[in-house]
């Protein structure tokens, strides 16, 4: 290297051969200089280009390092997020600004809607119709639903995407109460739910729907279900992933077969039991 470069004349234009760019014009004393010092000298010489030559490939190391960290994060992330969740849960309980709620795992509900905007219906224009394979098709107003026997449940809410909200209270009318009132024909085996956002649909088998923890919910955490949470009336399928709990419920149709709901067309399980479907192993919600 030194032999090779000492042959250059001092007036040689800098930077025309890789590796030689940092050489000072007087190359005589080069062999004594360690490579790093030479580079620094080059940087101080205004005529030399301090950016040519090899430098150190820090950029490549950074990118590779990040890939390694990313892979490690994927490997240990699950348990780390659990720990962060518990820390954030205790912090957000005392956080008046609500900023912690925006951090990953900061707790609370995530708003998911497949429709264009939040639909609003109230006392006057809300109706829940029950039809299909029933003896007595019927339409309920909000006041009618409130007049029926109310059931109160406090369970965890588990989303299929991973978030979980502990101990959330729902109250409303059992699906079985409404089904008994309408009289399901013997040919009916499943329920098809429609929503007044005009898009979302869901389904349950008759057997699932008759469980005691399947509600047509009117309140959440002691207050009427808000429009953002699917009010005034939403389904609450307590033992299932939350996509089964259709928001803005407006119609229940008894059908001959199960008709898969909205997300179930995109690969989610029709029987959405928490911990036993969608390839997940979450704890049960109760």
């Amino acid at each position, binding site marked *: 290297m030194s032999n090779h470069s000492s042959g250059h004349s001092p007036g040689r234009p800098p930077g025309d051969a890789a590796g030689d760019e940092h050489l000072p014009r007087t190359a005589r004393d080069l062999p004594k200089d360690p490579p*790093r010092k030479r*580079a*620094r000298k080059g*940087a101080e010489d*205004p*005529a030399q*280009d*301090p*950016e*040519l*030559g*090899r*430098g*150190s*490939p*820090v*950029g*490549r190391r*950074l*990118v*590779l*390092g*990040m*890939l390694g*960290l*990313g*892979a490690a*994060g*994927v*490997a*240990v*992330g*699950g348990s*780390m*997020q659990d720990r962060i969740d518990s820390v954030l849960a205790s912090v957000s309980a005392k956080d008046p600004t609500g900023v912690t709620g*925006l*951090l*990953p*795992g900061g707790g609370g*509900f*995530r*708003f*998911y*809607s*497949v*429709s*264009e*905007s*939040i639909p609003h219906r109230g006392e006057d224009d809300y109706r829940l119709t029950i039809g299909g394979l029933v003896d007595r098709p019927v339409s309920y107003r909000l006041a009618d639903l409130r007049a029926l026997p109310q059931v109160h449940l406090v369970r965890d809410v588990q989303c299929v*995407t*991973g978030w979980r909200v502990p101990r959330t209270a729902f109250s409303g009318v059992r699906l079985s109460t409404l089904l008994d009132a309408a009289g399901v024909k013997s040919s009916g085996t499943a329920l098809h739910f429609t929503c007044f956002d005009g898009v979302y649909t869901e389904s349950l088998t008759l057997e699932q729907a008759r469980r005691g923890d399947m509600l047509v919910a009117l309140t959440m955490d002691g207050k009427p279900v808000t429009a*953002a949470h699917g009010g005034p009336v939403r389904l609450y399928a307590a033992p299932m992933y939350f996509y089964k709990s259709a928001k803005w419920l407006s119609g229940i149709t008894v059908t001959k077969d199960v008709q898969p709901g909205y997300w179930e067309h*995109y*690969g989610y399980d029709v029987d959405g039991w928490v911990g036993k479907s*969608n*390839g*997940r*192993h979450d704890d049960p919600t109760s």
Partner: protein
Amino acid sequence: MTSTDGSESPTAAMTTPRPERRWRRDETGVRRFTRAEKWVHRSFTVLMGVCVFTAACLYLPELAEIVGRRRLIVTVHEWSGILLPVPVVLGLLSRAYRADLRRLGRYFPHDGKWLGTALRLRRREPTLAGKFNAGQKLNANFVAGAVLVMIGTGLIMWFPRLTPLVWRTGATFVHDWLALLLAAVITGHVYFAASDPEARRGLRTGYVPRWWVRSQHVLWRTGEPEQPATEHSAREPERPAPEPE
């Protein structure tokens, strides 16, 4: 004052009715980016913008409530994210772009000093900056690594059936937290760009003023014929001062 090295017609400014426009055209002088580089930056910006906006719509409850249409937003987010490397890969066809990638990836002793000064004195020292200062290099390297990690973890969530659950929760963890970090870095990038019109001009037109190079990127050898350094400094500043009528 009206003539600068590199300017083709030194006296033209005297007769031009709109001196500032003329200054933009040719007195800016130094080519910083070729058309390919501008195109890569612009396409990457658009894709990143769409990706970040859709991410916000999926993640922030207030935005999610306004926008809704979750299925559509998810699809747009996935595709804008997965396409992010495409402009970079196409950019590799350009020699100038490859040269800039090399500049961004390689660090020299002055870059270490620049970072030291930035950390200790909270100052971006232009005399230690080449075509890109060490902060810009770090930003580029970080974004490159982050985009790759986001794509990897994003794919795990996009095709949930291909991987076990622990991977998916891990991927969600990395994707969420790195997204916050990336948002902070992008905010910094935009902040610095917002406070430097000449840098923005460089990406818009490809050219930056000579005085800007000498004051902000002192170690950048622009590859144009050099005159003795003293002569340059004697003629500073070459800011776009109003021309005499």
